[in-house]
């Protein structure tokens, strides 16, 4: 479960002060697939970064899995990210010198999992996403959609409590995007995986259980995807 209370993030950029988030509070239950949406500059990525412990709020409190993350030092935050959170980024961010399987099991190695175990886990998850025949391929031998699926496998291999995805379809064509979103939905349903995903594409809403819409750093809507937007999205699709 994620609890955020009164999250504020202010950036000092020389003479200009930017209020990226203004007192955002929310609760996300285990197993929810939540979409954070909004226009560019609305604060959706900032919110994801704060919830995913990639940044610290100027004010406010975050509780992840019962732990108030303000009590964690830098090293503990790193360990927390490694052991309990998963991330998927817009540009896949695979390590170019590593093969598909090495990219997937890297974090398992760091966690101290035995070689036999992490190799088995890696094969299992890559098999699940249909890339078990690409174990020894490098990132530049894969399509964008395949790379993003590898990134999802990397995020999922350690069975994180929460999976954060920052516009994971932004660089993909619509077919690949749909494949990735289908995969997210499948993971969410079959494994009760909590997923928090930032998106600016209205048609992604049909995949979310809940949509949080931000504007100017504040939540303006929080609930199931609005019917009218879903209809619009279907037309667009």
């Amino acid at each position, binding site marked *: 479960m994620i609890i955020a209370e009164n999250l504020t993030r202010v950036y000092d950029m020389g003479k200009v002060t930017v209020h990226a988030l203004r007192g955002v509070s929310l609760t996300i239950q285990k197993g929810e697939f939540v979409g954070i949406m909004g226009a560019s500059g609305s604060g959706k990525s900032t919110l994801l970064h704060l919830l995913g412990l990639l940044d610290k709020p100027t004010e406010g409190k975050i509780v992840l899995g019962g732990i108030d993350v303000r009590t964690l030092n830098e*090293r503990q935050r790193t360990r927390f990210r490694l052991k309990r959170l998963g991330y998927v980024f817009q540009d896949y961010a695979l*390590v170019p010198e590593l093969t598909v399987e090495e990219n997937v099991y890297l974090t398992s190695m760091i966690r101290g999992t035995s070689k036999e175990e992490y190799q088995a886990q890696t094969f299992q998850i890559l098999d699940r996403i249909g890339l078990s025949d690409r174990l020894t391929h490098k990132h530049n031998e894969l399509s964008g959609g395949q790379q993003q699926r590898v990134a999802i496998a990397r995020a999922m291999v350690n069975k994180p409590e929460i999976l954060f995805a920052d516009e994971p379809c932004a660089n993909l064509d619509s077919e690949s995007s749909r494949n990735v979103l289908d995969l997210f939905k499948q993971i969410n349903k079959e494994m009760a995986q909590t997923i928090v995903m930032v998106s600016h594409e209205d048609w992604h809403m049909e995949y979310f259980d809940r949509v949080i819409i931000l504007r100017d750093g504040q939540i303006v809507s929080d609930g199931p995807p609005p019917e009218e937007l879903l209809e619009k999205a279907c037309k667009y699709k």
Partner: protein
Amino acid sequence: MLLDLRVSFFLALRGILRGSRGSLYLTVLIIAMVFTNMIFMPSIILGFIKVAEDQIITYQTGNILISPHEDELYIEDVFSLLEKINRIPGVLRASAHYGTGVTLRYKGNSLGSTVVAIKPDDERLVTDVYRKMADGDYLADGENDEIIIGIQTSGHKDESLDMGPTLGYLKAGDPVTVEYTNGVRKVYHVKGIIETGSYYADQGAYITWDELESVFGRKVDYATDIIIKTDPDSYEPEVKTQIYRFGIREKVQTWQDILEEAMGRAVQNFAMLNSITIVVSLIIAIVVLFIVIMIKTLNSRRQIGVLKALGVEKSIIIHNYVFQVLILTTLGIIVGTTLVESMVAILTVYPFQFPDGEVTPVVATSDLINNTIMLYIASFIAGYIPAWRVASEDILTAMRS
């Protein structure tokens, strides 16, 4: 900690094996050149010193030199002293020298030089000059009117090989006039020409002790110095101590003492030159590796940010780059050592020609070890700083780069 290092090494190895081949080869080549530079210069200096040592022992002073006491001109009662010295454990043979200034004349050329009177049978057991006759033969005990002359005094057929004034290509069998300081002027038959490769030995001229006595017209029982050959298994400073224990009051010096006296300053200068070379080489290594790792880390800033976001510790990222540098350094040292050994092999066959002889580089194991350690330390610093700088960046700043 061990697990983190294992992951760092895993990433480093993949980074090197699957990174840019061109950059890898160039970096290794530069480190190899730096290492070669660090090793080669001292090896030449060491080779030079080795030549000086060999020549001092083989052609000039033997292992130990006895000179007159500082208040005296000669070593008196030299033949009974020689008998005494020859009985000292560790001494193979002692040979007396009497050196006197002369003027040599040949076909209108004249040259100031030193003629050394020797007992040829003793001398053969102490120095190797007798093996280095370029023309004619060595002296024999009891010979009169015969002289042997070093090639730097007699002169080469090809004048360009002469390093100073000579008598103008004097050969075995030629007559040479020797004028002594006591007024005696005598024509000698040149029995042989010496060519040792040592400039000092090749400048000399030798006559027998009997000839000296005939020139002086009396028995000569004093010498200007005594040279001693020691047993190869004995340690010269110990033999020197033994000599003093036998009650000899003359000045006794081992070849190390003589080398220190003659070349101490030069050796110090060489050492300084060597240190400068090493420092410059290390700075080059640090700068090159720093730039290589700086470029690697700057190009991977986003990657580093992502790894940190995934929960990879900063130390793992830093150690990854440090390992990369250490691997590059290891490869550079291997290539560098191979280069040095190849150059040493070539220069053993085709040595450098110096006035004091042929110089072959001598690679000291201690130099190899010391320079390897220094290069590893320099590499560590050069890899650590840029990696630390980039890995210390805030995650989002790195990811947005």
